[in-house]
């Protein structure tokens, strides 16, 4: 069955292609997706498979079949169901899809079968529409417009399979054309999705499909103006949040779709409206429990990613005084650090996002800063300072947040060896790292006189002396200040001692 129990791994293992070939294909596709995102064209469609089929792209002379099948379908007869089923199979082929929409009255015929009294024909007709919606050709989606009001109407509940097909078909049609999207909005797709989700909240396959279709809408370029405000005033946000308690039997998939919807809402300018619904608490709790789970489950990162983003962005809307109540347990920091360590080598991007969330969490909260020390997470963070690609600057910001809060915390971090770590980061090529290191060093130095002695003992002074003539002003000014105001104020006597000992 298509519905994934945890997440689906199609194309894997069951294909005759070699794994090397598959890996190559994935690499190429990944490259294409990356470019599409840069061009702001990143869209995906989903193909809901029949229970008995595997993904095969082989189709047999679809074009011929489509024309003759359409002809046969026009003659009403007892074999209509079979012909319609054959048509749905033929329409997997991209050129057959083009042939179909060019045939006169083809869509009209399909809609009449979709709305006819034969329920088996309805099912096969929606399957045909679904295959068409999955087309790579952008002119296919507008051709499907006559069917959309019926697809929306059927969301009020027939069978799970039928509703799923309607939802995925709608979801696939959304990104192809603004005309289709505008029509769907006018036809009330948002309230239709909301009531579908509300009525079928226990049907997780439908919930997942609603999540997917909604996420397609929320990714539209003009979503901020036309879609997100309507969604936020509907019951959808609370429905989405209620899905964030994954069902162990069904798996993560519905939660993944809903979490992505919440991410698209939270990263908009109206994201703060989610706070009132307790979204921050809900997302943080789930993250905490995922982070605390023994060993990372397969596919867990697919859920962790959107949840991290929700928490990160919602934190930026959260007033400081209600931070504790909105986030809940301080042990969220433990989960975030666990993700940082777990994903550093396999999913660096997720490690980076975890660090961003940890920064937002510690920026204005002494409580979470203290928690980093209470749970002994600082040594692990310091080790991550060696890694580049944005991870180290974010980690250093987190440590700076901690040092900025309280002198006691600074002193504790010095005891944990932060100064010798800074001696390494001051040597880094990345200027932002050096400047941030100098900022942290300054906060540590003013926290107590013993810090200066320790830094000198660690041979830190020459590092600053090297930087004090650097052409980069940000670095230079800070190094000069530290040297002249804090580190070399005793230089005359120090030199005397030096002289004595060396002569």
């Amino acid at each position, binding site marked *: 069955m298509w519905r994934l129990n945890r997440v689906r791994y199609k194309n894997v293992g069951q294909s005759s292609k070699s794994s090397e070939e598959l890996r190559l294909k994935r690499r190429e596709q990944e490259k294409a997706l990356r470019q599409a995102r840069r061009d702001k064209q990143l869209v995906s469609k989903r193909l809901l498979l029949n229970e008995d089929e595997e993904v095969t792209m082989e189709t047999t002379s679809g074009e011929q079949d489509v024309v003759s099948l359409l002809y046969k379908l026009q003659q009403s007869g007892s074999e209509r169901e079979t012909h319609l089923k054959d048509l749905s199979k033929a329409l997997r082929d991209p050129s057959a899809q083009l042939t179909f929409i060019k045939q006169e009255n083809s869509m009209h015929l399909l809609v009449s079968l979709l709305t006819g009294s034969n329920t088996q024909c309805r099912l096969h007709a929606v399957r045909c529409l679904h295959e068409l919606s999955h087309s790579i050709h952008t002119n296919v989606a507008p051709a499907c417009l006559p069917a959309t009001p019926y697809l929306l109407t059927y969301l009020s509940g027939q069978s799970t399979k039928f509703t799923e097909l309607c939802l995925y078909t709608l979801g696939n049609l959304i990104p192809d054309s603004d005309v289709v999207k505008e029509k769907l909005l006018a036809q009330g797709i948002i309230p239709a999705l909301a009531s579908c989700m509300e009525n079928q909240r226990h049907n997780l396959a439908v919930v997942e499909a609603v999540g997917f279709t909604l996420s397609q809408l929320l990714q539209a370029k003009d979503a901020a103006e036309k879609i997100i405000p309507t969604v936020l005033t509907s019951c959808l946000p609370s429905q989405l949040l209620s899905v964030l308690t994954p069902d162990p039997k069904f798996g993560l998939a519905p939660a993944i779709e809903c979490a992505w919807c919440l991410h698209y809402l939270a990263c908009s300018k109206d994201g703060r409206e989610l706070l009132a619904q307790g979204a921050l608490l809900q997302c943080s709790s789930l993250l905490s429990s995922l982070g605390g789970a023994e060993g990372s489950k397969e596919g867990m990162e697919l859920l962790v990613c959107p949840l991290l983003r929700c928490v990160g962005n919602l934190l930026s809307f959260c007033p400081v005084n209600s931070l504790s109540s909105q986030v809940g347990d301080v042990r969220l920091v433990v989960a975030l650090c666990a993700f940082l360590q777990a994903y550093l080598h396999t999913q660096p991007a997720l490690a980076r*996002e975890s660090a961003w969330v940890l920064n937002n969490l510690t920026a204005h909260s002494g409580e979470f800063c203290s928690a980093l020390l209470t749970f002994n997470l600082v040594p692990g963070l310091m080790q991550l300072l060696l890694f580049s690609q944005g991870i180290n600057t974010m980690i250093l910001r987190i440590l700076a947040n901690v040092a900025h809060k309280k002198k006691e915390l600074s002193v504790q971090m010095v005891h944990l060896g932060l100064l010798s770590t800074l001696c390494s980061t001051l040597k880094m090529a990345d200027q932002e790292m050096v400047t941030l290191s100098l900022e942290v060093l300054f906060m540590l130095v003013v926290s107590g006189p013993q810090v200066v002695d320790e830094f000198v003992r660690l041979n830190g002074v020459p590092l600053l002396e090297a930087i004090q*003539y650097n052409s980069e002003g940000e670095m230079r000014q800070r190094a000069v200040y530290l040297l002249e105001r804090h580190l070399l104020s005793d*230089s005359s006597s120090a030199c005397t001692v030096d002289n004595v000992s060396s002569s």
Partner: protein
Amino acid sequence: MISLTETTEEQSELPFNFVPQLFHLHKDHDLFEDGDVHRHMYLQDLYCVSEAEDKSTPSISQFACHISGCSAVFSVLEEYEHHYNSLHRHVCCSCRRSLPSARLLDVHIQEWHDSLFTILAQTQDMYQCLVEGCGQKFRTNKDRKDHLVMIHKYPPDFRFDKPKKDRRTHETKKPQQIETAMEVVDDTCGSERVHDGLSDQQELGESMETHVSEEEAAQNYAAAAAAAAGGDAGLSAALHSNKHANSEMPKPQYSYRVPTTVCFGHGSVRGFRGRRGRRK
């Protein structure tokens, strides 16, 4: 170039401005790129657990030499340490030559840039033996060289005794190496120049104010150091008397013997001549 006045202005206000910051990231933020791509791989049924194993670990940060004019980059911290210690640890602030040890730097500063040394050398044995712990002094560089070859078995072509002419021609060929601050790279990091700092030639033009006696010199240093909270450590190391040490609690040692006024290129105007004259 940094002028002294500019430096003073820089110091007038606190250059530190870190404040904790929350970042709200919009949908198309770069930080989200990988995650979005991964999400769409999943939607397009290209998700695969083993895919994770293909992903490369984030690379280790690169290290760079921050000495002005030197932009050497290293992928391993040890390489950085080696580079720094070889080329920048013992650098003369006047002529920017890099010396292999703190002791040789002290000797170099005395013999090359200290006019008191010049005066005293006319009447006393001033050329210290280069060997740590020997303690003998000689009237001329030639005498010292003979001593080094005879007693300490140095090779006769020992490079520290490079004749003046060689260097002059080198300098006339490339005068900008000496004059222009931006050219420090060659001087500081050019390994061929590392050892040529100890010739018997004095560069009188480089001399600073003359000290009448060692004691007065020491007092001057103390005053200058007090005024300029960052005294001429390297220079004073050569000339200091002990009495300041006795009057103070022992302080941590600064292993770095380069004067804090050391001129790494851009800072050349802050050599001890300029600093001493203007800072009071």
